């Protein structure tokens, strides 16, 4: 059987990524260390002194899975905006790809898959740093990696479907500031959503990041609860499916005009 064409798109991204590996490698390991040191140890020290623990765990243990998935989301979002528009508008290499047997749907699917894989790499590095800092009490913590990948794929599926319809990047900074940043702050990343006012608490349930963080936290703290966790996975898969419907349509419309 022939190799699925979307793996060729993954191969292209991996080729580009491997050329930048050194620069990216630095941020991959240093950024989590900085985040965990500041939030987990610095802020966590205060939190622990005042409240003892958050959601039954040490603050560092609480915030580490939150930061892990939140950074996966941030990278996935930025990578689903400018690079996608670049492929069709600035660099135009998508038009090189569609002249081969590979079609617009494979470009889209392959890119979502790549973002998921890439976030697994980054999450594995993050997890390693967190474990060294003692922020991963459970061996189930490795499951935080697929949780982050699923979250990254959900954001990528939705945003790439949007980016491909754009002619300029004017809306992108606003998406990052008014969309991604609030999600980053209020999705149970730094504090439990139960701290939010009632209305916002329900709104937070619509955030894909919330579901990803809950999954990752269940993994790193080793405290799963079957039904809610199935719900989190289903929500993220639903986001990918919904984004996928628009992504397939929009990529085809734009590239096979």
């Amino acid at each position, binding site marked *: 059987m*022939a*190799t699925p*064409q979307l793996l*060729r798109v993954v*191969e*292209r991204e991996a*080729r*580009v990524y491997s*050329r930048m590996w050194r620069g990216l490698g630095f941020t991959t390991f240093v950024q989590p260390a900085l985040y965990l040191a500041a939030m987990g140890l610095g802020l966590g020290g205060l939190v622990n002194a005042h409240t003892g623990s958050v959601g039954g765990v040490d603050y560092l243990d609480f915030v580490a899975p939150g930061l892990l998935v939140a950074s996966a989301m941030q990278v996935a979002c930025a990578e689903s905006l400018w690079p996608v528009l670049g492929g069709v508008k600035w*660099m*135009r*290499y*998508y*038009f*090189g*790809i*569609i*002249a*081969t*047997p*590979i*079609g617009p749907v494979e470009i889209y699917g392959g890119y979502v898959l790549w973002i998921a894989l890439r976030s697994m790499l980054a999450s594995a590095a993050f997890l390693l740093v967190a474990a060294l800092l003692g922020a991963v009490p459970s061996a189930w913590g490795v499951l935080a990696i697929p949780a982050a990948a699923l979250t990254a794929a959900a954001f990528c599926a939705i945003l790439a479907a949007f980016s491909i319809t754009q002619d300029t990047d004017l809306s992108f900074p606003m998406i990052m500031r008014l969309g991604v940043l609030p999600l980053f702050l209020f999705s149970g990343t730094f504090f439990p959503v139960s701290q939010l006012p009632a209305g916002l608490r329900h709104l937070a349930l619509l955030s894909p990041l919330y579901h990803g963080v809950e999954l990752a936290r269940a993994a790193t703290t080793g405290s799963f609860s079957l039904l809610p966790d199935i719900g989190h996975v289903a929500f993220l898969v639903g986001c990918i499916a919904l984004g996928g419907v628009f992504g397939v349509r929009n990529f085809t419309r734009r*590239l*096979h*005009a």
Partner: protein
Amino acid sequence: MPGPLVEARALVKRFGSFVAVDGIDFAIDAGEAFGFLGPNGAGKTSTMRMVGCVSPRSGGELQVLGMDPKTDGSRIRARLGSVPQEDSLDTELTVWDNMMIYGRYFDLPRAQIRERAAELLDFVQLGDRRDSRVDPLSGGMKRRLTIARALINQPELLLLDEPTTGLDPQARHLLWDRLYELKLAGVTLVLTTHYMDEAEQLCDRLVIMDRARIVAEGSPRELIAKYVTREVVEVRLNREHDRALALAKLKPMGERVEALADRVLLYTHNGDAIANAVSGNGFGDASVLVRRASLEDVFLILTGRSLEED
């Protein structure tokens, strides 16, 4: 006898209410160099994209390599090479990596791609630039790399959309040489151009497109023989000439007369005699020129407009 490689009947492309291609028919045979000649906006690129299976047709019939692009686009593209008008190289990769990944898109084994990529880069004279990034390459080099890339799958049919637009004369001639060699090697070439010299140089057969339709078809020589006389006398009008008076004088002298903004063209079978007569009729020697008729004249006579005008 096998059928044509590409066959279109009543082919239509619409974008909303705009009709880009308005019911055209053509057939392209294996081994020939076939051209679409016409001004910008005539529908050449839209036609090319439909043949390249990257743009669905809005109506009519189209067969490429005996298959229907609607259902077999991917299988057809596997056997095509395509050089789009605008750059589509991967600027995040080197010249060599562009070749490698392109071969991978066609699902070719790496060893085979390496071998072909080295050959092809030499063929387009970029062998010494394989580790360069794409951005610093000149326009001509980028176009040559795009052609090398398009040949990685040994296509039966090579589509070239305005292959030399934007290139300087030297780069154009180098590219023409390469394309001519491909043609000799038996690759079927399909190209669009708005340069009549390019069409004359490269095409065995061509269609002239204007306003979404095909207005004439044949070899360059056939088209010239059919629509224009062998020679043309160009009379350049300067400011001292009263345009109306000059036209009245010149009209009866050619078998056919076309008045452009700055000059008058007299189509004739005896250029020298007419040129002499014109010179003796109050037009200075310097403003009279005899030349052979070209595709440009065919286009002018068929559409009443010059190719370069718009």
